[in-house]
């Protein structure tokens, strides 16, 4: 199997858009994420306590939503970006993700910037995480350093 060809800085255009497949968030995802992160906050782990909360039930860790959206994002882009480095992220949590919700990620290239080095450029990708009702549950901007063609 040959590797899919990668998208270099020159191949990526402002306005390029991608929509991922959906993924249903399960209780198992939340339990596994609590173990990986060490975040056992009652919001995510105490079903009895959460019955009397404004959410009425456990909610997914915000960073679980972000992690799953990164995996969905990778599945949405058929030709992966020639990423040299992940520089940073600005992220906003807008609403809860509950067990049984199905999320998708919509991505859009919003900025392309030259750098002082001729072999690379910086790309900003805006990401919106939507649930099955089309509500925006998380959103943010990712900054990536992308290789140029040789």
């Amino acid at each position: 199997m040959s590797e899919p060809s990668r998208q270099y800085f020159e191949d990526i255009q402002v306005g390029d858009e991608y929509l991922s497949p959906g993924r249903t968030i399960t209780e198992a995802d939340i339990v596994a994420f609590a173990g990986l992160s060490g975040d056992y906050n009652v919001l995510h782990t105490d079903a009895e306590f959460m019955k009397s909360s404004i959410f009425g039930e456990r909610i997914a860790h915000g960073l679980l939503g972000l992690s799953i959206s990164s995996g969905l994002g990778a599945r949405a882009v058929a030709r992966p970006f020639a990423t040299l480095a992940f520089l940073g992220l600005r992220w906003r949590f807008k609403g809860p993700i509950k067990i049984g919700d199905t999320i998708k990620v919509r991505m859009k290239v919003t900025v392309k910037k030259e750098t002082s080095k001729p072999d690379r450029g910086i790309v900003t990708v805006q990401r919106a995480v939507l649930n099955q009702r089309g509500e925006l549950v998380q959103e943010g901007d990712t900054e990536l350093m992308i290789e140029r063609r040789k």
Partner: protein
Amino acid sequence: MPRYFEDLEVGDGFESPGRTITEADVVSFAAISGDQEALDFTAGEAGLLPLVPELLIMIMSSGLGFRAPAEMPQVLAFMVFDLYIRLPVRVGDTVRCRIRVAGKRPMKDAGVIVEQRQMVNQRGDVVQEAEYKLLVARRPRE
């Protein structure tokens, strides 16, 4: 005793214990996130251990924040964060998290706490910096 917005002061802070990032953590992260890119452990430079996904370090820092000497405040919601990646982290590195309260703003039923977080490796280098905005419960009235 649960802690509330009123119990937190600007300048409060602590440094977490360390956590060694293992290959198993990277595999678990790939399984949970569905992001398989980090699983090619041969892709790195010769003689160096594999790179750890940047997002996994951020996730570890969220959990290390709970290992404070005092009980965690009652966080109602994680609102916003900005993350700055400074240096790569490799399998076998041990990271700890330095947390400092940088600001607080009361609201009607809760309050916003701004935290500055630094992730530091075993050599004392800052590998990531983040600013978190958390919605924290106010002390219930008697």
